[in-house]
C-alpha cells in the first residue's frame, strides 16, 4: 500500500523534554509506511491548566489547532485524510474533547467560532478526526504488519504497559477501548516479543502537575505506580504520554528521597520499544535522555546504549558554578511581554 499520511500535532512537550518521543515516532513511521505531516504553526493545547482559568479561551486556542489541521489536510488516498494524530495524551484529550463539545454544544461552538474569527479562522466541528498515536499504530497498522518489521524481539524483557488516564478516558475514543482495563498496548508489546506483565495500575494516574501543587500528593501518586511496577518485577515501564514519562522518570529520584525508598524503574515510550524491536540503534530513538538509567534493563535484550552526552548538552560554565539552571523570573516575564508586541 502507499504511504498513509496523517496530520500530526506534536505538542509542546515533544519539542522539549519529550523529544525522544518525537524522534522515535518518526523513526518507526517510515518502516510502517506512515507519514506524519506536522500541522502549520500549531499552538499549545493549554494542557489541564488553561481550562482551569478560562473556559472559552481554552477551547478557542485548542480550536485554533483544529482549524489549522482542517485547513490543510495532508491529502491522502485513504479515508483518514482528516485524521489528526497526537502522540501526547493531554493534547489528544484536549483536541478531541474540544471537537466533541463543539459538536454537542451549539452555544459553545458559536462562541468559539466568534473568537476564531478574530484571528481570521473558523472551525466546523467534526471536520477533523482526532486520534492518539497508539490508536493509529494498533488499529491502522496492526500487529501482523509490525511483526514483519521486528528484527530484534524484546525477548526476556519484562515490560509494564502504562496507559495513564487521558487516552483511556473519558470515552472520547472511537475505537473499541476499555477505559478501566485496556489491552491494546499489552498486545502491541507482546507482538514485539516482550514479556508483558498484567499491570493492575495500567490506567491509574501519574499525578499530572500535582508535584507542583502538592508535593506529597504528587509524589505519592508516582510512588504507587513505580512501586506497582517494581512489585511486578517489571524491567521497564512503557508509556504513551510525555507527562507520565516526565513524572515517573524525572521525579523518580525526588520521590525516592521523599519516601526514603530506592526504586529504579526506567520509563520509556512505546515508540522507543518499537524502534528497538525494529533494530534501530538506541541513540536514534532518543534513548539515553531518560533520567532513570535504562541501560541495565536494555542490556537484557543486548542493546548498547551510548553513555549520556555529558560533554554536549548544557554549556560547561553552568556545570562549574553550582547554582541551579533556573531562569530569572521577573525579567523574563517582562521580556516575554515586550517581545510579544509586533
Amino acid at each position, binding site marked *: 500500500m502507499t504511504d498513509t499520511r496523517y496530520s500530526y500535532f506534536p505538542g509542546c512537550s515533544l519539542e522539549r523534554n519529550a523529544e525522544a518521543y518525537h524522534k522515535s515516532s518518526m523513526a518507526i513511521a517510515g518502516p510502517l509506511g506512515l507519514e506524519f505531516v506536522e500541522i502549520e504553526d500549531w499552538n499549545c493545547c493549554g494542557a489541564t491548566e488553561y481550562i482551569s482559568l478560562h473556559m472559552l479561551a481554552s477551547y478557542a486556542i485548542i480550536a485554533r489547532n483544529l482549524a489549522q489541521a482542517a485547513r490543510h489536510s495532508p491529502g491522502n488516498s485513504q479515508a483518514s485524510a482528516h485524521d489528526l494524530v497526537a502522540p501526547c495524551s493531554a493534547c489528544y484529550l484536549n483536541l478531541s474533547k474540544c471537537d466533541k463539545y463543539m459538536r454537542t454544544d451549539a452555544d459553545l461552538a458559536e462562541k468559539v467560532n466568534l473568537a476564531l474569527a478574530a484571528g481570521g479562522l473558523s472551525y466546523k466541528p467534526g471536520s477533523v478526526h482526532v486520534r492518539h498515536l497508539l490508536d493509529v499504530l494498533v488499529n491502522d497498522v496492526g500487529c501482523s504488519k509490525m511483526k514483519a518489521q521486528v528484527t530484534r524481539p524484546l525477548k526476556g524483557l519484562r515490560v509494564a504497559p502504562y496507559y495513564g488516564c487521558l487516552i483511556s478516558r473519558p470515552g472520547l475514543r472511537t475505537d473499541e477501548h*476499555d477505559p478501566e482495563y485496556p489491552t491494546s498496548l499489552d498486545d502491541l508489546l507482546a507482538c514485539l516479543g516482550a514479556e508483558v506483565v498484567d499491570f493492575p495500575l495500567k490506567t491509574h494516574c501519574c499525578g499530572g502537575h500535582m508535584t507542583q501543587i502538592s508535593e506529597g500528593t504528587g509524589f505519592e501518586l508516582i510512588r504507587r505506580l513505580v512501586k506497582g511496577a517494581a512489585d511486578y518485577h517489571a524491567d521497564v515501564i512503557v508509556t504513551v504520554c510525555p507527562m507520565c514519562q516526565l513524572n515517573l522518570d524525572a521525579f523518580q529520584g525526588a520521590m525516592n528521597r521523599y519516601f526514603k525508598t530506592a526504586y529504579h524503574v526506567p520509563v520509556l515510550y512505546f515508540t522507543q520499544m518499537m524502534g528497538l524491536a525494529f533494530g534501530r540503534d538506541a541513540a536514534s530513538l532518543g534513548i539515553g535522555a531518560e533520567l532513570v538509567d535504562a541501560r541495565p534493563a536494555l542490556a537484557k535484550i543486548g542493546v548498547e546504549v551510548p553513555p549520556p552526552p555529558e560533554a554536549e548538552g548544557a554549556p560547561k560554565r553552568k556545570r562549574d558554578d553550582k547554582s541551579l539552571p533556573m531562569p530569572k523570573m521577573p525579567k523574563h516575564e517582562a521580556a516575554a511581554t515586550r517581545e510579544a508586541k509586533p
Partner: protein
Amino acid sequence: MKRLDEARVGVYVCHCGSNISATVDVENVAKWAGENLPNVICARDNKFMCSSLGQELIEKDIKEQGLTRVVVAACSPHLHEATFRGACQRAGLNPYLFDMVSIREQVSWVISDRAIATEKAKALISGGVRRVIHNEPLEPILVDINPNVLVVGGGIAGIQAALEIADSGSHVYLVEREPSLGGHMAQFDKTFPTLDCSACILTPKMYSAGNHKNITLLTYSEVEKVDGFIGNFTVKIRQRARKVKIELCTGCGACEEKCPKKVVDDVFEAGLGFRKAIYRPFPQAVPKYPVIDVENCTFFQRGTCKACEKFCPTGAIDFKQEDEIITVNVGNVILATGFDLFDSRRIPQYGYGRLANVFTSLEFERLSNAAGPTGGKVVLRDGVTVPQSVAIVHCAGSRDRNYNKYCSAICCMQSLKFAHLVKERTGARVYNFYIDIRTSAKAYDEFYQHIIEEGILFVRGKVAEVTDAARLSGEEGKLIVQVEDTLVGKQRRIPVDMVILSAGLEPRHDAKEVGKKFGISCSMDGWFIERHPKLDPVATMTDGIFIAGACQGPKDIPAAVSQGAAAAARVQGLISQRQISLEPVRASVDAEKCSGCRICNTMCPFNAIAFLADRQVTEINPALCQGCGTCVSACPAGAITGTHFSNEQIMAQIEGVLMLDLRQMAMA
C-alpha cells in the same frame, strides 16, 4: 349520508380529577363541542367519567335524550373503553356505537400550554364525533377456550402457576429448558428473610409438579413455534434427546458415577463445580432421569467409551435417541422464563475473572450450599483457606448507567443473607458496601436489624475498585476495596480476603426472541411488558399470554410465587368462562363488488382468505380473520370492508381532526 341526520350524539369530557382539567379547559371544550359539532345532542363534563356517577350520567342521557351514539373524551381507550361500553350496553345501546378519545395520555399529560392543549382536545373530540356517527352496531365474536395451559419455565414461578392450575383440574404442559425443574431457587442454600433451607421448601413443590396427574412435564425442551390466538394456540415444542430411555431409567445414578468425563458445570454450579458428561444437575432433580451432554461426551466426540451403557442396570442408555417435536393445543400460556445473572466481567475495576477471590452472588450461593462443591464450606478459590475478612459489594451492575439503570430489587436482602452466612460459617469480619439499603417488604427490615445485631459492618458508599496492588503496609497479599465512606466523607482502602459481588438481574439473553414467538414485547430494559404496571401486572397486550416471575422484572421468591399464582388465577378465570368474546373487528368481502383479482389472497398471514374458484370470488373466514385490515386497504375494488374501522369511519375522523377553524386557532 342519511345516517348523519339520524345520529344523536352525546359527548362527555372527563376532568380525571385534575389530571386533565389542570391543562385542558374541560368546561369550555364540552360547551364548544355542544355548539360546534354535528349531531351533538348533549355535551357534558364530569370530574370522573369512569365513576358510577359518570357512567349513570351516560345511561340516563341515552334513555332520556334518546342518544344513539356516545363519545367519551378521557384517558386512553386501553384503560376504560370496556367501562363505557358497559354503560352503553346497560342503557340498551349497542356498545360499538360508542367511541373514546384520549385527551389525557395524548393531551393533558404531554402538553404544558393550556390554550394549545385545549385546542388539541377539541380537534381530537371533533374527530371522535365524526367517526362515531358512522359506527355500526356489532355483536362480539365468541370463541371456545381450550382448557389446557402451557407454562414455560420450571422455576419457582412456573412451578407455582402449574400447580395452581393443575390442582384446579385443568391440564398443564410445563416446559423447562434445563434437564430439571427448579430454576435459580434450586441453586440457593438459604432464603431470606426466614433463612429456611431453599431445597427443603422447593423440593416438595418440584416433586408434586413432577408427579401431578394433570401436569405433563417437558424438561430439556424448548418452545419452537406458536400459532393461533387466545382460546386456541397450537404450540410446537422441541424435546431434546436425553439419550436416555426414561421408561427404562430408574434414576439410580450408576451412569453418572461411572462416567469418566468431568466437565465444569457453568449452569447449576455457576462454574464453581464439576459434573459428568451424563448428569443430573443435582441429586433431587425432577425428573430423576439424567441427560448426556453430547458436546462433552467422549463417545460422541471420539466414538469410544460407552461406560454409561455398560454400567446401566436397565439398559436405558440410547445413543441413537433423536430430538422429538411435540405439538400441543392450549387455550392460554404463562411465561415464567426468569432472569440471567449480570456478567460481572463487564466491571473490570471489580476484578472478577482476574482476581481469584472475587466471587459473584451465584458463585457464593453454591459455595455456601451444603450440597455445593465445598459442601457448604465458605473458603477462598484455593478450596481450603477460610477467609478472615469478606467484603460484600451491593449494586454490582445495577443502578448504574454504565450497565443497568434499574435496581435489581433482590441484592440488598441477598447481601444481608450472605453477610449472615459468612459470619455464621467463618466468623470472619464482614463488610457490606451499599448505596442505599432497600428492605421494604414484610419482615425484611427486621432481618436487616437482625444482621446489624450480628456485628456486620456497613459502609455507605459504592465501591470504586477492587485491586491487588498493595499501596500501604497491611495490604500485601490482600484484596483492597477502595471506596468513599460517604458518611465519613473520606476515602478508605479496606483489605479483605474475599469479595462477593451482589450482581444484578438481567432479562434472559433470548427474551426478545421468546417474546416474538409469543407475540409480546419487551421494555427498554428488556423485561416482558405487562398490560398495566399496577392494575394488570401478569397479563400482556396479547390475550391469552400471561407472564409471571422475574421475566417481568427483578423479583424475589415471594413476589415470583405470588405472580405465578396470580397468572394461574387469571387463566382459571378464562377457563371457567369456557368462552371468550373477542372484538368483532373483522374483514368481509362484498361478493357483488369482488372482481376476483385475488390481490388480497396473499395478504393474510392467518389464511383467512380463500378464493372460491367456482364463483370466482374471494371469501374471508371470520373464524380465522384477526381484523388487522391489511386486506381491506389492499382491495382495488373496495370490495372488502373492515368492521369498526371502515373507510367511512376513518375518513370522517380525518375530516374531524382537521376542522379548519381549529388549525387557525392552533396557529394563533
